[in-house]
């Protein structure tokens, strides 16, 4: 049976989805700016973060109003509270995209220390995970959410490889490489954190749909 306020609840899903698309766009721009060492694109991406912040606040307020007005229970309650959590995760991902752009600014005017190999791979994993996480939320798709969670191990491996290479093959051997190595190290860290946020979103989706807690319990997957 359709309820008179179902449209208002569906609208929250649409708002989160729209924000998810905007965040994916910011991340794509950040990775693009990195690959092309495009400082202008990096600066545009940083400036666009304001819109994401605005969306986050608006979504949060909207969700709070739904809680206050309708006192939702069960599936509705899980949906709204997890939508609020996912809203916050998306905003953090956008902040990390900004951090990547700031590292692009740090590297401006300098040749790259080495050709980027693992970082673009890690960036692609991050984009896939975000795409999958948001899709799982929109479609209430637990299987897609599980795929996202399982992919996080790949992100960790790639980040560890970047770290190993930059620390041991470059900075340990030649300290003067540090100003060019550190931003790359931080970028790998930002990308790995983006993957963690995507994992969090996917875990929230599983709870939202099934009331199953997999957060901190990967054995339950």
């Amino acid at each position: 049976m359709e309820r008179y306020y179902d449209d208002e609840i569906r609208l929250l899903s649409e708002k989160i989805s729209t924000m998810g698309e905007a965040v994916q766009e910011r991340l794509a721009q950040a990775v693009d700016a990195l690959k092309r060492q495009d400082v202008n694109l990096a600066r545009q991406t940083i400036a666009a973060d304001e819109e994401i912040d605005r969306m986050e606040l608006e979504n949060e307020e909207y969700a709070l109003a739904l809680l206050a007005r309708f006192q939702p229970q069960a599936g509705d309650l899980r949906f709204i509270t997890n939508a609020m959590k996912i809203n916050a995760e998306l905003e953090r991902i956008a902040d990390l995209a900004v951090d990547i752009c700031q590292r692009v600014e740090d590297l401006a005017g300098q040749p790259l220390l080495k050709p980027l190999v693992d970082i673009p791979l890690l960036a692609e994993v991050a984009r896939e995970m975000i795409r999958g996480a948001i899709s799982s939320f929109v479609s209430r798709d637990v299987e897609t959410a599980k795929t996202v969670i399982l992919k996080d191990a790949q992100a960790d491996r790639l980040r560890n490889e970047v770290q190993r290479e930059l620390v041991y093959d470059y900075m340990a051997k030649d300290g003067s490489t540090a100003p060019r190595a550190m931003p790359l190290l931080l970028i790998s860290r930002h990308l790995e954190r983006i993957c963690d946020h995507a994992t969090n979103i996917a875990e929230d989706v599983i709870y939202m749909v099934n009331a199953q807690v997999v957060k901190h319990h990967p054995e339950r997957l």
Partner: protein
Amino acid sequence: MAQRPICTEIIRVDRLNLFYAGLQALKDVSVSIKPCAITAIIGPSGCGKSTLLRCFNRMNDLIEGVRITGRIIIGGEDIMARGVDLLSLRRKVGMVFQRPNPFPLSISQNITYGPRVHGMLGRQRSEEVVEQCLRAVLLWDDLKDSLNAPALSLSLEKQQRLCIARLLAVEPEILLMDEPCSALDPIATQRIEELMTKLREKYTIIIVTHNMQQAARISDQTGFMLLGELVEFGETRQMFTSPADRRTEDYITGRFG
């Protein structure tokens, strides 16, 4: 604070069926109710909530044409068995109704009436009983100087508290409440709910309510009924965040009822 009893079950219902002149109102209901807790029974109109509640003190016996099968065990005794002392049962298992129903007597007479009938009252004790019971329902300070005033002169909320005090005077174990707040405004409702959470320390409370938010707020366990069947029963927190049965989910999210 009163010590909680060690037992985990104060009422056990075992395959209870009830028929009103051929129409089945309760279907194979089985449930175990915890002591010193608030159990809420929710469900759409006509689902059998009040019928089930009235089974616990055999008030359904007063309805012509009722037939009941199954058992209800309270304090180790099957109260549905022949020969059960109904007066004693209804002392132990008291009931509060939707519309407050104080006797057309004074405030203090309302409270002492039950103990007198049950032979529980000596002359000196009546003042103590009145004070104790009014304190238990947080009415003593308001009413101590007007105990001879007519009970019907009180506000509806205070009348309902007085009805609860009247129950407490006969030292019950179980309080049955059939939509006790539906005639009250929101502030009065909140006060009665606060009283119920306080009484839970010493008494077992079973409440029938149409107000799901009330059930979610105050109860420890909730049972959802539909068409005479107890569809789901469990910890309130679980029922209102992730019910196991689809019908329960649909009801508490307002998709029917």
